[in-house]
């Protein structure tokens, strides 16, 4: 797939230039100077020879076959060149030229024209507005980047050309190896998903790295990512998550930045490892490209000083890694050669007077403990320690074990050459212990992801048919939201328990309703204009007598009338008062790029401030529902604190799956909230106390 891009037999540079400093010159120079073995054709009507290669006036005039065209001509000429590619049967092109969607309305029109022309001519292209592409294995450097990275297993694609340059420059001095470097530009034709699929198939690529600002088709992205991550780790740095970042991103390459929560859920659900900084992107990439995955969460830390050991242990504690004590036999063996002042449990502090041999012995001994899944070696450059020797010792051991070893030799000057040695022999070294821990944690997460069983999706009876008439009617009437009684019907159709409710127009009717339901009751205003009832003082709870109901009727109707004189007040809903249980909130939202998501959070009055909520993109699997509940910080409250009974978590899971089903059944739901959903004790189920549905769109 995309073979002519990565492994072309011949390359034409359309717009090649004789003038150093011009992009058309630099690209040709890059292709020439890094040993590309195939044919190279500079295309320039005003030149007969550039950089020692015979130049041609146009693609048509080139005698031989061309596999890849790199286009650097002014934007107004790009479409014509693409047409020539078609004529010349060139099916792959890289459009370096800028001045398209990123530059305004005219550019946007031009880009559409480009897409049309390419389709018509049978040409697939990367760009426009990109830096080009590098393949270290086929020695193609069709870019205007300065330098060529070392060969290696990291395949990198980026929406930002500048970031490509920065990453490349950062990689050069440490000789970090890459397989491919692809600057995606505006992604007018070849998309992130195309590249991800190509990199997944590429034998030279061990780990896929990406920088994206937005994706075109969220669902497609997830689908592809899910497949690719089964084969190889995919690490993505996604920017544009803050509102300021989003503004900058949309003016950057014209992609609409999706919502943070949606991306987070999408990455989680498709096994993509998310990096939050460029540094993290690098750190993770180094770990994945060089070390085997840990088979479990247990990590042992070997250090020659206390402080860094504690920092590493703290970082593990905050991650999903576990610090477990070594086996007794291992501890006993450690005692035979470590000073008595050493710390034999995890972190294992072999003390500041350690030399390379003590590191070696400790490491060898600890590896005998089968339950240790990963090792982190920390070193502070004491006067005693020989850093280079220690590095060699670690490298030797790492080469003979199937367990990952990450190091943090701290400092700069004294550890410089040691760190280089480590990296040369595939042991990533990190400046700080926390980085080693977070990289190990990312590897562990990926291990869990590839080992997890296939997701299970619950089977539902046909629920849709019971509610479809409500949504159809609402669509016919062009309604933006469902009325209270419609919400009630939809919820019961999907099997939600709702409190018994009776409508009352007067206080007399309300009293009769309350008697029928049984005291105490809840009363809520019924008015199509009042959406957030309690904001308007339209809700009263715990009404336990005739008098209380009468007063509540007066208070609610008067208050709403005062605040919203134009609201139409139908009356009140008298409801059974459900007591006990915990309030949670769940709902459906719709993201522009990923579609429907199901949301869950602990309810109550602080929910809006705490924002302790979790999202998953539909359809939800059983595992998704299980995880998202546990993802919230307030989950322990559902488990029960200080002897409280556990809440019916299973019923919450079922409700989330039902909502997911509902969203799939009715694409027109824009937003739905059940707030609060009262969760009773385990086995007693949940009750949907109040809910809202906003509908519309396609």
């Amino acid at each position, binding site marked *: 797939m995309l073979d002519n891009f990565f492994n072309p037999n011949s390359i034409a540079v359309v717009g090649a230039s004789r003038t150093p400093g011009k992009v058309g010159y630099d690209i040709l120079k890059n292709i020439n100077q890094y040993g590309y073995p195939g044919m190279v054709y500079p295309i320039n009507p005003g030149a007969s020879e550039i950089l020692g290669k015979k130049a041609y006036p146009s693609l048509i005039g080139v005698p031989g076959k061309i596999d890849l065209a790199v286009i650097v001509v002014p934007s107004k000429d790009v479409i014509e060149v693409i047409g020539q590619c078609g004529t010349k049967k060139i099916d792959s092109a890289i459009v370096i030229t800028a001045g398209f969607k990123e530059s305004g309305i005219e550019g946007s029109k031009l880009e559409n024209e480009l897409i049309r022309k390419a389709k018509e001519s049978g040409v697939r292209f990367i760009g426009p507005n990109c830096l080009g592409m590098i393949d270290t294995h086929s020695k193609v450097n069709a870019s205007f980047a300065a330098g060529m990275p070392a060969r290696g297993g990291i395949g990198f694609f980026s929406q930002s050309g500048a970031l490509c340059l920065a990453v490349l420059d950062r990689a050069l001095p440490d000789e970090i190896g890459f397989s491919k470097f692809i600057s995606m530009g505006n992604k007018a034709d070849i998309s992130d998903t195309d590249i991800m699929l190509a990199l997944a198939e590429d034998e030279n690529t061990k780990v896929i790295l990406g920088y994206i600002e937005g994706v075109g088709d969220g669902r497609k992205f997830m689908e592809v990512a899910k497949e690719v991550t089964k084969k190889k780790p995919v690490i993505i740095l996604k920017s544009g998550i803050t509102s300021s970042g989003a503004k900058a991103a949309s003016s950057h390459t014209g992609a609409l930045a999706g919502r943070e929560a949606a991306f987070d859920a999408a990455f989680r659900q498709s096994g993509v490892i998310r990096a939050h900084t460029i540094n993290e992107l690098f750190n993770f990439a180094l770990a994945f490209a060089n070390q085997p995955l840990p088979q479990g969460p247990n990590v042992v830390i070997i250090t020659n000083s206390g402080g860094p050991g504690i920092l590493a242990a703290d970082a593990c504690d905050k991650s999903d890694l576990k610090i477990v004590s070594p086996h007794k036999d291992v501890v006993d063996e450690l005692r035979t050669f470590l000073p008595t002042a050493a710390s034999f449990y995890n972190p294992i502090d072999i003390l500041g007077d350690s030399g390379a041999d003590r590191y070696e012995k400790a490491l060898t001994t600890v590896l005998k403990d089968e339950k240790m899944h990963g090792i982190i070696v920390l070193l502070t450059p004491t006067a005693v320690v020989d850093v280079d020797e220690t590095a060699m010792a670690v490298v030797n051991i790492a080469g003979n074990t199937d367990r990952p070893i990450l190091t943090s030799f701290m400092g700069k000057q004294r550890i410089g050459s040691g760190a280089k040695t480590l990296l040369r022999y595939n042991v990533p070294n990190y400046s700080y212990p926390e980085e080693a821990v977070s990289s190990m944690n990312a590897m562990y997460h990926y291990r869990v992801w590839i080992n997890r069983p296939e997701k299970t999706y619950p089977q539902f009876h046909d629920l849709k048919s019971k509610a479809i008439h409500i949504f159809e009617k609402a669509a016919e009437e062009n309604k933006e939201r469902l009325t209270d009684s419609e919400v009630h019907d939809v919820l019961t159709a999907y099997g939600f328990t709702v409190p018994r409710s009776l409508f009352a127009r007067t206080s007399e009717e309300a009293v009769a309703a309350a008697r029928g339901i049984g005291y105490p009751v809840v009363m809520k205003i019924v008015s199509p204009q009042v959406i957030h009832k309690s904001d308007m003082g339209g809700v009263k709870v715990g009404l336990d007598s005739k008098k209380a109901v009468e007063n509540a009727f007066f208070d609610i109707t008067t208050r709403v009338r005062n605040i919203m004189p134009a609201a139409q007040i139908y*009356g009140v809903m008298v409801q059974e008062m459900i007591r006990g249980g915990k309030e949670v909130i769940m709902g459906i939202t719709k993201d522009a790029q990923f579609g429907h998501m199901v949301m869950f959070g602990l309810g109550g009055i602080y929910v809006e401030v705490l924002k302790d909520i979790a999202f998953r993109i539909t359809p939800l699997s059983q595992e998704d529902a299980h995880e998202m509940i546990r993802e919230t910080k307030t989950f322990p409250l559902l488990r029960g604190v200080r002897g409280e009974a556990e809440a019916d978590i299973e019923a919450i899971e079922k409700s989330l799956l039902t909502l997911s089903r509902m969203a799939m059944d009715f694409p027109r739901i824009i937003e739905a909230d059940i707030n609060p959903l009262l969760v009773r004790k385990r086995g007693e189920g949940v009750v949907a106390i109040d809910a809202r549905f906003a509908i519309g769109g396609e």
Partner: protein
Amino acid sequence: MIALYIGSTGGYTGKSLVSMGLGYKFRKDGLRVGYFKPVGILPIKVEDILTDNDAWRIYRALELNDPLSEICPVVLTQELAVRSYGKELKGLLAKIVKSFDQLSKDKDVMLIGGYGSIYTGSYLGLQGLKVLKRLNAKVIIVVKYEGEYIVDYVLQAKKDLGDRFVGVILNKVTQEHRESVDEYAEPFLKRKGIDILGILPHDPLVGSVTVEELNEMLGGKVLCCHDRLSNHVENFLIGAMQVDKAMEYFKKTRNNAVIVGGDRSDIQLSAIESGSVCLILTGELYPGEIILSVAEQKDIPIIVVREDTYSIAKKLEKLSIRIRLRDKAKVSRGMSLVAENINFPLLYKKLGLRAGQ
């Protein structure tokens, strides 16, 4: 006993303000004054007695001792509204007359507060015109002055009221309108034989709302400075510009509340710095800690509301025409406004009243 009906040809013209002011003056002049509101539209329960909120406030301002239950015999609750649309209600007018008779027994003057205009209330069988005739009242019409065209309504009222018509009070006359009142409206009305009993200038304080009222009307949450809820807001501004323009804009308007998105901390800070009296943050977006602490320092309450800026502005537009006389500062300013600007000699003469009767 003289029954004096304070009516209008439209809603929210300042009838309560006038009733309160007149009552205060009458009392000061030694007259025995009572207040009566035949139909109330702002239900409130005071110690379990159903009455009208405005009536209750006037009752308290005038320090009356009559039984509260009789002050406003018909209160338009949701209950009554539902029933009145369902079937013809009987006996309401009789109830009004009975209460009125009871209250007016020992009075020199009974002020009667109209509701809406003198033409509203027909669906209850209690149109203002019908009620005031049944109570045999003389009538003052309070007009919110919005341009010369209002004379048209006054002429119609005179025609409908005949001899009962005492005169007109022009209210909320702004500086800009004052000229047209002097030049056109007043001479014209005089020529038509209509007395102008007073011209009340627009007063920013009387036209203001407190932060507390605002919060209630908007269904918001107050985040800080709970002790400053009595701040008076006279103007509303929308903070949607670049921050460098905001400061100037805010400073030009006094006692303003700024409506701004909860995520615009730059504008919020400018508003606080420029001395706004209240911030209304829209979109249910909570401000940062820094904003809260600065606001706390400067004693500027912050309200968070759920709706967007446009919806809130729309609501406030409606709110500003139905300002009510609620708190002490406004009441006392309102009273002195009436005392200073009503031609009492003329009014007394027309009613045949003498001070200290």
